[in-house]
């Protein structure tokens, strides 16, 4: 029961929200005075004459038909939808609409109840909010853009860094080449100079004129070879650009012959027997300086570390592999205790013999040069039996 002073009809009409009721087909069959006030129409102009869509502008009708009504029908209710009501005088009133479907008896009957709230004041605030949101969205996309720009410049810096790293690597490489060069000069000239001393010793000791003449010829040859080696080194310096990479076709036998001349004193003194078999691979495209240096080092080492118990026998052999050429140098010298020296065999200033001439530069230098060209060097050895040094050259380099 209602309070005696209250009248249901009056409450309904003076309610602060508009109310209307429509059939399921949309025809308005009842509305309160507040709704009339909101729309500016008389009751008889609306009831059974108008539909809710008649109070909406065309754009909102699309929203009503494609979103509002489908949800209302499918769900049975819909809430807080914002429309602009078009009043009789064509002015607009922003409203929020809540609707609910009330079914009666069989499911074909029923009606739609709707309440309409005036939100004019809130609407202004909402418009400000919308503007602010738009601004925030713009700002956000600007931020995204700046972020992207930052990312791009970071990428650039990283690229520059990697360029610098490459350059640095190049310079390091260059530096090590120069250092190699210094070693080649000092080391590769040392053997022939020593050699010269030997030959001069023979010369002084010898009394036979023919012997002396032959020795002088040999000394001349050695001097010529030294001259040639020096010139090559100087040329390679002149070339400046990564001198060791300037490659040419080299015949193994030719290089060996030059080395035999350079070391002829040693060979003569030790009666060393040098043999070779270059039938598998006769030629190689490689740096002349490096190949000569490597072969000279291996031969002079083999002679230097010969066994006092036997005449040194040193054999050069080329082996043809699919992707590689192998140059093996086998001797019957002192041998190296591989297990003991495995890790530092080719290190700088490493020596494995208590030999007076041992400086530990030759193998290190050879390794650095060979590796710089993409190859490798390895050794197999047995103490007091001898060693096999193998240089692996990559065919495709």
């Amino acid at each position, binding site marked *: 029961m209602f309070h005696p002073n209250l009248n249901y009809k009056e409450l309904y009409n003076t309610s602060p929200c508009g109310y209307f009721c429509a059939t*399921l*087909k*949309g025809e308005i069959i009842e509305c309160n005075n507040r709704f009339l006030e909101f729309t500016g129409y008389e009751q008889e102009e609306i009831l059974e004459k108008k539909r809710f*869509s008649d109070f909406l*502008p*065309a*754009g*909102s*009708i*699309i*929203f*009503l*038909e*494609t*979103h509002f*009504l*489908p*949800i209302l*029908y*499918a*769900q049975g209710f819909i809430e807080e*939808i*914002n*429309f602009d009501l078009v009043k009789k005088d064509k002015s607009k009133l922003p409203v929020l609409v809540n609707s609910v479907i009330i079914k009666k008896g069989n499911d*074909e009957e029923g009606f739609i109840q709707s309440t309409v709230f005036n939100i004019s004041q809130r609407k202004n605030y*909402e418009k400000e*909010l*919308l503007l602010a*949101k738009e601004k925030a969205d713009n700002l956000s996309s600007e931020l995204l853009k700046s972020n992207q720009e930052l990312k791009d410049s970071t990428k650039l810096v990283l690229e520059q860094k990697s360029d610098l790293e490459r350059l640095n690597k190049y310079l390091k490489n260059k530096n090590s080449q120069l250092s190699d060069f210094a070693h080649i000069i000092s080391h590769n000239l040392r053997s022939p100079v020593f050699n010269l001393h030997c030959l001069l010793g023979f010369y002084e000791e010898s009394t036979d004129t023919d012997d002396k003449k032959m020795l002088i010829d040999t000394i001349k040859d050695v001097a010529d070879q030294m001259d040639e080696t020096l010139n090559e080194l100087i040329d390679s310096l002149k070339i400046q650009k990564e001198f060791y990479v300037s490659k040419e076709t080299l015949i193994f036998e030719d290089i060996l012959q030059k080395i035999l001349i350079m070391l002829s004193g040693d060979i003569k003194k030790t009666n060393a027997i040098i043999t070779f078999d270059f039938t598998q691979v006769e030629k190689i495209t490689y740096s002349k300086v490096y190949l000569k240096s490597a072969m000279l080092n291996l031969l002079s080492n083999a002679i230097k570390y010969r066994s006092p118990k036997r005449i040194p026998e040193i054999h050069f052999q080329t082996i043809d592999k699919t992707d590689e050429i192998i140059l093996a140098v086998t001797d019957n010298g002192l041998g190296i205790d591989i297990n003991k020296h495995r890790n530092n065999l080719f290190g700088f200033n490493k020596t494995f013999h208590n030999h007076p001439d041992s400086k530990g530069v030759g193998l290190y230098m050879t390794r650095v040069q060979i590796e710089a060209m993409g190859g490798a060097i390895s050794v197999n050895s047995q103490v007091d039996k001898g060693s096999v040094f193998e240089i692996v050259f990559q065919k495709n380099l």
Partner: protein
Amino acid sequence: MDNIIFRNNVKIFGEGEEVLLFVHGYGCDQSMWRFITPSFEKNYKLILLDLVGSGKSDESKYSFKKYDSLEGYSDDIIEICESLDLHNINFIGHSVSAMIGVLASIKKPSIFKNLILIGPSPCYINDDTGYEGGFSRKDIDELVETLDTNYLGWSSAMAPIIMDNPDRPELAEELEQSFCQNNPDIAKHFAKVTFLGDNRNDLKNVTVKTLVLQSSVDAIAGINVGEYVQENIVNSELVILDTIGHCPHLSAPKETIFALKTYLN
């Protein structure tokens, strides 16, 4: 195939062999067929889907480029049909999906047995040749404005709240049960593509048998538009329902079911 099914939230059910493929229109999702499908479950295989960007489709697959024309959507329909190896299907498209079906049937007629177009419109805008689509460009701008005000706060509201509250499953459930909740940016884009498009020239290329189902009063696509569609599709007929509104399958399911059954039989 699984990601196509996931992308379009495809649902397959029903005990029959012959396929009814239902595609919802602008502003809603597959839940709009809920009063229709129970009447067909016994005798048909029913396939429902959400267009990408609508309902519970995989929103991450929405591309503003691909879906800048209805062809993006019709290609999806063809892709779904091909991945499910569907032929001779009955395509039931509401509103904008009527045109999506039209485009798909022109590209791959072999998939389709019948096109059933509910409230179709090939062009919503009036033009100076005398064609009356019912709206002006200004009306569409107004629609976008209405979308804006009704989606105020939407983007920050829904998904993150659910993601951040795994201990409140009712939030996820609420979304699960929600109808036609579409991302506002996508809704606006889709609105422009739908209501500013013009597919009138495509109608004459339809070869598949077509039914145009038209409400007697429809503010979005009036009877004159329904008649235009029927006149321009060769093998077509027009059935006018004694219903009011753009969604007779929701407001008058009985009449709609009756018309569908009559045509299919």
